[in-house]
């Protein structure tokens, strides 16, 4: 039997959506994918003609916060992408099937849609102990991932776990948690964040859906449209930073004034994400707006990047409290001490040398004075010497 996949428009029609609602949905998709208004026609055409792509969503070492974020996508119609318009054929968390039946569904989806399905991966892959730390249906995470990646049209790594290992990969990383881009040899769209922003997630899915290709990625595999700027660059508190107005402690007046949290360890200046533009919870707020600094959850290895509430990170190997400044100031003090010791030693050891030089200079000066007093005689002396 042929496995025919209807288009998004057909699916929506079947579910009783009107043409007007469909066009509205397309408009939202245009915005979510960051297209210009004149991209609407393209979107409508794509959603009318293209088959609804099946999705396989795999869960490995993770906490499901990415799924939780995704299903809370602020726009109900955008949320419908996953439940109504995408064909979510396999996802452990949300599927009704379980056990053998569930595994069968996944295998069938992959078989029937070879080279067509979108693979979403949440969580890192434990490589230690032959993958024993995370096994599903008797297969290791690595096995499942590699099988699924084989025939995927696009692979999206949801969240910091799948993109850079996140907390499982934090030192000492007992399970050797590995991000998926290091395991599959296909391009992977990294969507880091703990969790990523729901609108960013839907935006990326929409992009893949529309263009059948992955969005433009930066050197770390992140879509440029959402990860090209630092949280700091678009932060609404940025003017306070430029004005040099900083919160000095959590309960000071500056904190009430909403000044910059830079000195409280805010990671905005070193974190690439769309938080300060897209915000969270239906564009309501984001950490900095709520008075807490950014903890840089979308940056690689953020658990090991030093204390969250300290502007300058601890320096590796020198204890938790020693920052670069502690070490630098110590080095400068030791150097100054060394200079003082050397100066004292020089004063003793080289004094004789300098004294000889001084005596010679004085002698020379005396000779010069003598010569000036009696130039002819000196000349004669010189002649005799020769």
């Amino acid at each position, binding site marked *: 039997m042929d496995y025919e996949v209807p288009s998004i428009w057909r699916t929506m029609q079947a579910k009783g959506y009107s043409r007007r609602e469909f066009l509205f949905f397309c408009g939202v998709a245009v915005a979510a994918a960051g297209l210009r208004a004149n991209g609407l026609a393209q979107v409508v055409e794509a959603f009318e003609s293209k088959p609804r792509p099946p999705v396989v969503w795999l869960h490995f070492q993770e906490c499901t916060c990415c799924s939780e974020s995704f299903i809370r996508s602020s726009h109900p119609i955008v949320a419908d992408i996953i439940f109504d318009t995408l064909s979510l054929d396999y996802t452990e968390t949300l599927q009704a099937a379980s056990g053998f039946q569930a595994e069968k569904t996944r295998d069938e989806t992959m078989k029937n849609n070879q080279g067509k399905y979108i693979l979403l991966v949440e969580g890192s892959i434990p490589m230690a102990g032959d993958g024993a730390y995370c096994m599903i249906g008797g297969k290791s995470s690595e096995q499942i991932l590699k099988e699924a990646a084989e025939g995927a049209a696009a692979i999206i790594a949801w969240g910091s776990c799948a993109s850079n290992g996140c907390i499982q990969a934090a030192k000492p990383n007992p399970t050797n948690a590995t991000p998926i881009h290091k395991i599959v040899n296909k391009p992977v769209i990294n969507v880091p964040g703990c969790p990523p922003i729901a609108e960013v997630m839907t935006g990326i899915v929409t992009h893949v859906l529309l263009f059948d290709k992955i969005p433009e990625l930066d*050197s*770390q595999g992140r879509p440029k449209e959402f990860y090209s*700027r*630092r949280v700091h*660059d678009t932060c609404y508190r940025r*003017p*306070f*930073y*430029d*004005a*040099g107005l*900083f919160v*000095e402690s959590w309960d000071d007046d500056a904190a009430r004034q909403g*000044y910059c949290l*830079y*000195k409280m360890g805010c*990671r905005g*200046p*070193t*974190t690439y994400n769309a938080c300060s533009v897209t915000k969270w919870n239906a564009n309501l707020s984001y950490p900095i707006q709520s008075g807490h600094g950014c903890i840089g959850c979308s*940056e*690689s*290895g953020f658990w090991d*990047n*030093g204390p969250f509430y300290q*502007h*300058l*990170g601890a*320096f590796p190997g020198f204890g938790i409290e020693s920052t*670069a*400044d502690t*070490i*630098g*100031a110590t*080095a*400068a003090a030791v*150097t*100054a001490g060394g*200079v003082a010791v*050397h*100066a004292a*030693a*020089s004063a003793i050891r*080289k004094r*004789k*040398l*300098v004294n000889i*030089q001084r005596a*010679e*200079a004085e*002698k*020379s000066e*005396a*000779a*010069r004075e*003598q010569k000036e007093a009696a130039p002819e005689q000196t000349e004669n*002396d*010189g002649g*005799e*010497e020769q």
Partner: protein
Amino acid sequence: MATARIATYQKMYVWELPVRIFHWLNVLAILVLIATGYLIGAPQKIFDAAEPSQQYWFGIVRFSHFAAAYVFFFNYLFRLYWGFVGNKFAHWSQFIPVTKQRLKEFYEVVVVDILHIRNEREVGEGHNTLAGLSYFAAFLIFLFQAGTGFALYSSMSDSFIPSLFAWVVPLMGGDAWVRQWHHIAMWFFIVFTIVHVYLVIYHDWVEGAGETSSMISGWKFRKDESDDAE
């Protein structure tokens, strides 16, 4: 007074004008970079009665840092160039001990000037080997500092030069680490300055060759040992 001779000194042109300009521009740039860089890392509490919209001191500090960085970088590139076309004292080979003679001098400097085991050595005109080598190390750190600095700057600039260093960020594990190393390297400059200024004073005192003024005038002085011929 037949034994007393008038000492004569030979005037040696050591540091060419471009070398001296490099040196003082470098001093200026490094001082500005350290001061502003430290402030960027640890902004001081300077409150003003004016409205926040009327203030921009931190922005100015950062601007000065970036402007001085460009001066520092191009000055550095110029000095590299001059290491190939300048006089022998400016030549790149002064910074890397390649000849046997320079290795011998290296040993002598350690014995005489650092450890004070012996008291005297023959003093050359340009950099001594140890100093040359330490400047070579400094030049590597200059490059490191320029590279990490521009890498951090690349995220807020579309200019060509910072974009050349954007690859440093993922290599070092993200902006947080680039910034950390950029910060620790600042302390190298501080330590270097302490040692450098001290050694200038030391050599000037011990050798009497006009070490300090040579970087202003270009001239050094060597006692003419052949004055017996007079």
